[in-house]
């Protein structure tokens, strides 16, 4: 029963390892290092990396920037609440905000073009979950995160809130429409 007794030897540090342990430690160490280096490798050669670009902001300042974009680039409205659908020019800064319980505004992108998508929250924490493409990030009040994205599939994507944000959490949806290029 020696695991629940003191070791048999007063000096156990010098005891030789069994071959099975030594071999497994070697294999597991190589695998651990491989997994570690895979992450920097993907930063250099992979295409899906979340940028760490972010700014401190306030709900008022962020709302103002978003509204300016909405006023300039709205192409139509949708739903009974007349939510604006905004089609910003490729390459531009796009502002999306989360608030109880809505993503504002709806967005329209062109396939193959790149956008600087800013996201922030007006109130509590929210989760940005773009489905079905499956991109998920955490959205905090007071912080504005920026990701540079290039939609490479066309069609309708839905933004689902995936951080619990109160009783309306499960109704908090938004849309990103991606049109074929050259339209």
């Amino acid at each position, binding site marked *: 029963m020696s695991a629940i007794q003191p070791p048999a030897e*007063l*000096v*156990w*540090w*010098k005891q030789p390892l069994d071959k099975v342990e030594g071999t497994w430690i070697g294999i597991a160490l190589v695998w651990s290092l491989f997994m570690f280096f895979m992450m920097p490798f993907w930063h250099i050669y992979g295409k899906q990396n979340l940028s760490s670009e972010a*700014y*401190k902001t306030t709900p008022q*300042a*962020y709302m103002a920037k978003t509204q300016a974009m909405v006023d300039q680039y709205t192409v139509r409205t949708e739903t009974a609440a007349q939510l604006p659908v905004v089609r910003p020019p490729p390459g531009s800064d796009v502002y999306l905000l989360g608030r109880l319980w809505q993503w504002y505004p709806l967005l329209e992108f062109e396939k193959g073009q790149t956008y600087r998508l800013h996201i922030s929250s007006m109130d509590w924490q929210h989760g940005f979950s773009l489905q079905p493409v499956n991109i998920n990030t955490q959205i905090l009040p007071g912080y504005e995160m920026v990701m540079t994205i290039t939609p490479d599939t066309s069609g309708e994507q839905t933004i689902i809130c995936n951080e619990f944000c109160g009783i309306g959490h499960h109704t908090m949806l938004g849309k990103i429409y991606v049109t074929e290029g050259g339209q």
Partner: protein
Amino acid sequence: MSEETTNSGEPVRVPFMQRVLDNPFILLFIGIVFPTLFYIIWGIMEIVNIPIAP
């Protein structure tokens, strides 16, 4: 310090690493300092250094 005697009186030399592992308070120190430094303090520094939006 590296000499220890057993209850039956035989002296033994305990290697340095074993003495570290036998000392709960050194381990406690390491177990608090490492995550505080690498995870909490480094992380908070990064948050503090986020610039204000232009």
